[in-house]
């Protein structure tokens, strides 16, 4: 898909991403984009290890309080979790397609796909809100505030502590993702991205895929296996 062909196809006479120049300390656009992508991958390492701390706490307390973990996880709503997983995976698809259309300098298609991704993210948060309110209502709260009855194991509070910390911090990352996607959407509408320059879309895409990847691990651990 050489550049010439895409320009003809989009029939645009304006030069692609006019505002983009290679930074003075990079010798070529390729090096600049590779550097950007490596930088984002390094940042994703820190995200993996940030959640890693919570996975470690989950692993340890699961092996210590196995019975309370199994009993507590029955109180999580598998259907809602499943829907959320499908929602996030489809948002991952639309995000990847958005990056692809940005590479092909299709401004409108990119904008639409980004909007769909935003919608999916918003849907994810709504489902999360429903789940949380259900838990607050039933008293399934972390640590000190755990006040639900009908538990005959000792430490369900620890399970919900880890549940709220994991899904809470993951939710915060979904919100950050939504802000980033809105920022990218505005810049797409201004026609800043094209096959010459789409690094920010790709960067936000990588971040969003990681948020989805974390949920891919969260969902079975918390909802299915417990």
């Amino acid at each position, binding site marked *: 898909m050489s550049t010439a062909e895409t320009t003809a196809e989009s029939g645009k006479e304006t030069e692609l991403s006019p505002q983009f120049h290679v930074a003075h300390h990079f010798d070529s656009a390729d090096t600049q984009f590779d550097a950007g992508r490596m930088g984002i991958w390094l940042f994703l390492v820190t995200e993996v290890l940030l959640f890693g701390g919570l996975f470690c706490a989950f692993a340890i307390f699961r*092996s210590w309080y196995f019975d309370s973990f199994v009993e507590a996880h029955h109180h999580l709503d598998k259907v809602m979790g499943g829907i959320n997983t499908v929602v996030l995976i489809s948002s991952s698809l639309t995000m990847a397609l958005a990056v692809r259309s940005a590479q092909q300098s299709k401004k409108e298609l990119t904008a639409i796909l980004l909007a769909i991704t935003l919608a999916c993210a918003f849907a994810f948060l709504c489902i999360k809100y429903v789940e949380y309110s259900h838990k607050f209502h039933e008293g399934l709260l972390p640590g000190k505030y755990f006040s639900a009855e009908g538990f005959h194991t000792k430490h369900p509070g620890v399970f919900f502590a880890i549940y709220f910390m994991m899904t809470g911090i993951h939710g915060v990352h979904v919100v950050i993702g939504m802000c980033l996607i809105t920022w990218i959407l505005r810049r797409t509408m201004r026609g800043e991205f094209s096959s010459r320059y789409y690094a920010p879309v790709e960067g936000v895409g990588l971040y969003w895929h990681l948020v989805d990847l974390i949920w891919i691990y969260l969902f079975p651990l918390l909802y299915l296996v417990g």
Partner: protein
Amino acid sequence: MSAASHAHDDHDDHAHGGHGKDHVPHVLPLAVYLGTFATLLFLTAITVGASYVNFGAWNLILAMVIATVKAATVALIFMHLWFDHKFHSIIIGSSVLFLTIFITFTMFDTENRGRAEAIEGEKPADIRNPFKASERQADMMRNMGPISSATADVARPSPPAPASAAATASAAPVPSATVAPSASVSAAPSGSTSATPAPSASVAPSASASAKKP
């Protein structure tokens, strides 16, 4: 590096914003994306289905394997790792490796507590008063293998300590009669937290576990 040879005649001038050749993106066909999406949904369906069946310990392993396959699909295709510099795969691979190190080394500790000294695996029932044992703990300690007073009298190779002190002192496994200071409080009229006279049998996990000779 000697005085760096100033390449004056360097043709592609780096000095300021090289116009150089444009970046040509690597675009995948649409079918690849839709294929990955279908795989992901399919695997999600499998993992949810598998969770209803009780495989015991295998549930966790199966769920983890499926999750890792899904994660790898997202990473390799949606995140372009397959078509990208190998170093980016090393980066994300190292994060998973160090996370595994973190979890396994911490579990070296948490899984092996109480293996050398059984008592270290136990958790006191009441934090505020660790040695006022709950019943469950006392029973557990009792059938940990009582030390018969006979062993206590065995003359030790080291200077033969008079056994008498040991005999009486070593905690007989049977809950000793002396009741810990029964905190009978002539409940002050207004005292809301008047401590009810708790005949706390002071058997705590004191029957020393039959630890192995060092």
